[in-house]
């Protein structure tokens, strides 16, 4: 078996298992094979993985390391890979071994539940992640699987998702481990940045570089934070008791034997790289001690069996973390023995707790008691595991405690460490007593609790690890066992560790301490009820749960405050945005330091008689602009706005820019017409009401001030910029001279504005006519379709058929004096438009103005003849078709030119190509077709708006 297969096979096996578990989601399959029997199939997968992982153990004991790598992000040299040494193997074997037991156990636990396949899928997925985590060959793979365990743990805790407590517990664990994950990622990236590689093989050998790096403290803090959060170290331990809302099989697996050890795994793994410094020692020792004490103390006061186990797990994790920090052979020996012992007895106890819960319906210590009669096998299992937890001989737990105590006789902090360890050991003994004696012995405390023994397969799972707790020490069989543990410890420690599994080492200091711990623990157990009562009275003035709750509340408060800013008023938004924009401009420009004296007063040295006209149009523009602000009738305000536009047009004429002026005039008129027609659509009463409200609701003084400041600020900036631009004339345009020089020759246009629009910057024009078309299409769709959905329409449309828009002005048929000129005007406009297009290249006026002029004539039709008659008389006036044909013509024209000249939107004279004799100044060129396209699109858009505004269905009731 090659390295690759050896390493990949377990993971793939577990993934396959997940897939098989998922197959049972199928209802018929699930009904055919109940969960109790599914598990025998599913348990095969972890079992196979376990066997495969066991195969290379003797090679591992010789110090061999199995490696597999694959390129992931080659540009950054990032690889993913696996790494299997004794330290990994220790965890990998525990994971798969207990995994088998849990899968079988869960089958009984969920007996009769249809959707228990979810649990199996989550568990196997978790198992894959956990196995991947301990077998990861580099920081990235580790992190990927690390997050995988967080997520699957979240799903498992929230398995009973209908229970709010399960959701809260799951969220808390995700929040804390997820936060830890972010820190871990940063920390690991720091480590690989400094060591220059993400691979364990390189990182583990660059310890000196890492320790002497200036970032050492940062990376240590970040990595440790991640590991502490995962391994429930103080003060991040609070998520673990909350995670007890998970189904018991999950708690037994994740929250005692496997996932919570991930932090232990990682810190010990990094020991050769980051350890052996005083920071490392103090960090791990202090946090470990705090965790031990906190877990042991709080565990004693628990009523819930699982809560008790959770806190004792926390205490045990503290012990392990502390051991990693001690940096001597003895402590790493204690570490590996502690990990194995704890995994065995704690998973057994959890499963027993699950059995008790399952069979009696409660986990409350104060209600249980005397279960031994009804549940003798469970009692036997609990007794074995409990003895091991209490650290009593002849159990594996005793050995673990012995080695721990031996390790605490470390030269640093010796008395403190030993005292804390003894005290913790005593408390754990008392807790084991609570679990075993108070639950199984004595008399039942609550007569309503009925118990019966669990089915055999359910007992099998806890029995095996409980029995192993005894067997391993009683029959210290093949040398391989201790050699394997020694190799694991050595892999983490970095140099050789000797491990012996002999129970008795003679009368020495650890034994003495052990005796003290047992005595003290017995005393504590004896006084358990008064002590617990005292603990309850003492309460907890400050717990870290409150800190967690406080953080969440702070987030919610912050969120509340932040969303207040989004209060829905456009006015406020615009003010903030304008002020921010002005600040940005000043941020870059600096505070303006011009002196006005240095400026030449721009452009007001009008020549001759034009001066008066300019002055007049300036007055019109500013006057009517002000008028739009103060006029309170909407109609007058619109007229004033229109006057402003026309005044600007005059200014353009004088500039002289006749093209621009012409466009300005026709657009101004068109918008006036459309606005007035829109007003006519609105019921008069509603309009008046809106006006009254608009003027009655005067904004408060501070609001006015705010708005004024924003307006003045942006006004000043624009004025300042305009002034600067004007005074610096003549500006140096790079392109205008080129246009002037080449327009006639290259495009055949005498008018450079025309040449710019349809030739030099034809792309702008193409997109702009699309924009204009969409505006019309949008108005039409909004009023004719969406408004209907929004319920803006009067229901009885039939009743209001005879309105002005169906017939004409005022709902009456217009007089012939109006009808005749209107009738005649359309052909005139058409001719005018065609002429403008034909000579658009040389004269003011182009496709756009042509479209608008024709559109205005059509608008007159709508007013005079009404909607129905106009539509009937002008069947060719189909807005969408006009738009589509316009836009498509422009594009097709461009494509045809491309075929001849290789330039999309290039210039070509089709007439010249076929040799058509044409009147002077007129060319059937690509430009001409483009003008037609523009005209069609513009006309189409205008027609859409008129159609939408004139549609009789729009009419509100009561205006007829």
């Amino acid at each position, binding site marked *: 078996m090659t390295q690759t297969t050896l390493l990949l096979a377990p993971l793939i096996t577990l993934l396959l298992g997940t897939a098989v578990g998922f197959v049972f989601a199928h209802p018929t399959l699930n009904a055919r094979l109940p969960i109790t029997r599914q598990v025998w199939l599913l348990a095969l997968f972890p079992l196979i993985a376990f066997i495969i992982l066991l195969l290379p153990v003797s090679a591992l004991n010789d110090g061999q390391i199995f490696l597999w790598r694959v390129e992931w992000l080659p540009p950054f040299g990032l690889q993913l890979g696996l790494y299997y040494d004794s330290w990994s193997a220790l965890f990998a074997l525990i994971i798969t071994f207990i995994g088998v037991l849990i899968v079988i156990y869960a089958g009984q636990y969920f007996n009769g539940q249809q959707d228990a396949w979810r649990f199996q899928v989550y568990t196997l997925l978790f198992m894959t992640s956990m196995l991947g985590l301990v077998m990861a060959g580099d920081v990235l793979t580790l992190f990927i699987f690390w997050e995988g365990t*967080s997520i699957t743990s979240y799903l498992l805790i929230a398995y009973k998702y209908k229970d709010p407590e399960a959701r809260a517990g799951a969220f808390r664990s995700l929040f804390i481990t*997820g936060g830890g994950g972010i820190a871990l990622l940063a920390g690991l990236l720091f480590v690989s940045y400094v060591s220059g590689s993400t691979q364990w093989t390189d990182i583990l050998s660059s310890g000196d570089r890492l320790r002497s790096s200036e970032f050492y403290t940062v990376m240590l803090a970040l990595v440790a934070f991640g590991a502490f959060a995962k391994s429930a170290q103080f003060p991040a331990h609070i998520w673990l008791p909350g995670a007890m809302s998970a189904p018991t099989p999950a708690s037994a697996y994740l929250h005692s034997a496997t996932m919570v050890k991930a932090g232990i795994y990682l810190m010990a793994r990094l020991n050769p790289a980051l350890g052996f410094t005083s920071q490392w020692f103090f960090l791990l020792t202090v946090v470990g001690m705090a965790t031990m004490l906190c877990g042991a103390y709080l565990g004693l006061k628990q009523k819930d069996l699982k809560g008790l186990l959770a806190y004792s797990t926390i205490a045990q994790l503290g012990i392990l973390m502390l051991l990693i920090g001690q940096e001597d052979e003895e402590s790493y020996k204690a570490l590996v023995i502690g990990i194995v012992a704890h995994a065995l007895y704690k998973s057994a106890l959890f499963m027993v707790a699950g059995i008790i819960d399952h069979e009696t319906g409660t986990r409350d210590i104060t209600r249980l008691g005397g279960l031994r009669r009804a549940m003798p096998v469970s009692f036997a299992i609990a007794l074995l595991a409990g003895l091991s937890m209490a650290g009593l001989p002849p159990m594996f737990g005793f050995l673990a405690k012995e080695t721990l105590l031996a390790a605490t006789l470390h030269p640093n902090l010796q008395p403190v460490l030993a005292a804390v360890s003894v005290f913790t050991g005593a408390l754990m003994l008392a807790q084991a007593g609570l679990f075993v004696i108070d639950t199984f012995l004595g008399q039942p405390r609550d007569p309503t609790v009925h118990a019966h023994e669990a089915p055999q397969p359910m007992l099998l799972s806890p029995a095996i690890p409980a029995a192993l707790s005894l067997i391993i020490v009683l029959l210290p069989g093949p040398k391989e066992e201790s050699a394997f543990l020694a190799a694991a410890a050595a892999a983490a420690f970095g140099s050789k560790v000797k491990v012996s599994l002999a129970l008795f080492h003679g009368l020495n200091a650890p034994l003495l301490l052990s005796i003290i711990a047992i005595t003290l623990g017995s005393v504590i157990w004896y006084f358990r009820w008064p002590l617990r009562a005292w603990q309850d009275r003492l309460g907890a003035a400050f717990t870290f749960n409150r800190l967690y709750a406080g953080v969440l509340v702070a987030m919610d408060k912050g*969120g509340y405050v932040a969303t207040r800013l989004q209060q829905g008023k456009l006015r406020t938004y615009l003010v903030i945005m304008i002020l921010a*924009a002005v600040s940005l401009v000043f941020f870059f420009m600096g505070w303006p330091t011009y002196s006005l004296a240095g400026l030449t007063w721009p452009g007001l040295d009008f020549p001759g008689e034009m001066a008066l006209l300019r002055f007049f149009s300036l007055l019109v523009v500013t006057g009517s602009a002000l008028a739009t602000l103060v006029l309170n009738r909407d109609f007058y305000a619109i007229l004033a706005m229109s006057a402003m536009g026309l005044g600007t047009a005059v200014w353009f004429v004088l500039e002289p820019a006749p093209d621009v002026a012409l466009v300005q005039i026709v657009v101004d008129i068109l918008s006036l017409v459309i606005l007035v027609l829109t007003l006519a659509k609105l019921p008069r009463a509603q309009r008046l009401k809106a006006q009254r409200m608009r003027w009655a609701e005067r904004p408060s003084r501070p609001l006015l001030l705010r708005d004024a400041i924003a307006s003045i600020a942006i006004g000043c900036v624009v004025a300042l910029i305009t002034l600067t631009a004007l005074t610096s004339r003549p500006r140096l345009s790079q392109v*205008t001279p080129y246009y002037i020089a*080449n327009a006639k020759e290259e495009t055949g246009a005498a008018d450079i504005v025309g040449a710019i629009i349809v030739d030099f910057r*034809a792309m702008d024009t193409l997109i702009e006519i699309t*924009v204009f078309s969409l505006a019309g299409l949008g108005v039409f769709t909004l009023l004719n379709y969406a408004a209907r*959905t929004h319920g803006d329409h009067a229901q009885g449309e039939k009743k209001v058929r005879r309105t002005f828009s169906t017939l004409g002005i005022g709902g009456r048929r217009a007089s012939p004096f109006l009808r005749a000129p209107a009738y005649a005007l359309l052909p005139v406009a058409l001719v005018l438009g065609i002429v403008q297009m034909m000579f658009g290249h040389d004269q003011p006026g182009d496709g756009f103005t042509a479209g608008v002029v024709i559109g205005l004539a059509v608008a007159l039709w709508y007013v005079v003849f009404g909607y129905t008659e106009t539509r009937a008389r002008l069947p060719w006036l189909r807005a969408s078709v006009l738009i589509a044909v316009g836009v498509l013509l422009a594009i097709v024209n461009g494509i045809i030119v491309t075929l001849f000249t290789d330039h999309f939107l290039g210039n070509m004279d089709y007439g010249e190509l076929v040799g058509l004799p044409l009147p002077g100044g007129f060319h059937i060129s690509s430009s001409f077709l483009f003008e037609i396209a523009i005209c069609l699109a513009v006309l189409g858009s205008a027609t859409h708006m008129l159609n939408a505004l004139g549609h009789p269905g729009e009419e509100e009731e009561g205006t007829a």
Partner: protein
Amino acid sequence: MTIEPQLILLPILIPLLGAGVALLLRKRRPYQAGWSLGSMLLSCGVSLWLFVDVWQTGRPLVWQGGGWLAPFGITLVADILALFFVVMTQLVMVTGMVYALGSGDKAVKYPAFLVLFLTLCTGLTGAFMTGDIFNMYVFAELLVISGTVLTAISDDKFGTEAAYKYFYMSLLASFLMLLGIGCLYVSYGTLNMADLSGRIQAQPDGLLLLPAIGFLLATFMIKSAVFPFHFWQPDFHAASPTAVSAMLSSVVVKLGVYGFLRMTFLLFAAQAVQMRGLLLVLGLVGILFGGLSAIGTHNVKRMLAYSTLAQIGFILVGIGWGTPLALTAALVFAFNHSLIKAAMLMLAGFVASRASVKSAAFDVVTGVGRPLPAAGLLFFIGSLALAGIPPTSGFVSKLLLFSSGIEAAAFWPLLILGLFSILTLVYTMRAFMRIWWQEPAAGISTKPAGDHLLAPILLIGLILVLGIWASPLVEAAQAVSAWVADPAAYVAAVLGN
């Protein structure tokens, strides 16, 4: 002269032509739908092909409008940066159209909907591809008018109000952009960006150069919804049709990101340090503000809108660090965020379409997801992606961004970044738990039918694929970041010397 440069017009012209024909097909819905989707797919395929082509040859394709050489005509520049954004846009917009076609909304069945959707695509694509700053303004207008109308015609009656706000704020952006362009034209007399770049370098004390930077920065900040220019973003989403909001919050906001890149590297390299500092600070503020607001809001779609603010913040931080690696990270982040956010908004819309009242408010959708496990799985994966958890593409983004921060030795920003990024997990998971796990309120039930899940399935699938097989995207982003760092090559390609 070969025809090849004309081909870069295709990603713009195919949707535009498609829009024109779709308008003619307005009364034959099946044909219109098929045609529109076909146009989008074709255009997306062509963009991808162009991207690969330009990536491999290593030089951009330049279209000199109508044969008028830069700076006299309008130039479209298909450099790898522009095409990166174009591919991203069109990919997401294809799924957007798929969602729209499978949606039960009335709005998507209006004759104009698909037309406007296609022009939205045209506008955005053109804005990325143009090499002329005024032409960019014109394309942005097309984008704005399409987006406005698409929102206004929403089934939700508040759509019109939302569109109105969006339109006004975009109008402010247009106004500021026009001022910026005016300032540049007054100072340098040209509108071509390559030409501008060269002239600004030659004459760094242009009269109105500095105000122009301020105006353009503000413009792009509005486009990208950067705090405090973000106000259009959240209000818009609750009311807009799902297919539209999914586009606006994913790809359209990237126009600003693109703008920042062009500004810092091409146009105003001399002021890049100042701009980067500003973007970094605003990015961090955005991460905090967006995250908190997402926690504080009561509507899934709004939550995702606020989330965009935060996610754009991450991208800005990358641009702010400005190292090649940070830039790669920002580009990958931008690409992935588009996919993720579009998928999440579609899923939110899907849930809303199955709620008894069509709304994404938590009051309405709480518990609605219980009978919808498939959507739940997708939303869960999407949440993981948003929070940057493997094996999703979001993790790749976060990984690169963190790495670049470490490489740039930017501890404090990195610390703040890390601290605030937990907020993402909080709001997405809370939303997930409320919709899929919590008990529905009395009287709330799940409707048997609603929008189709195909589009989010495609996106989430892509997110997973890009999370596992990440190297193509990352290599592409790396090529882009290397190209961006060399503005002289861009200028030479456009001006042809």
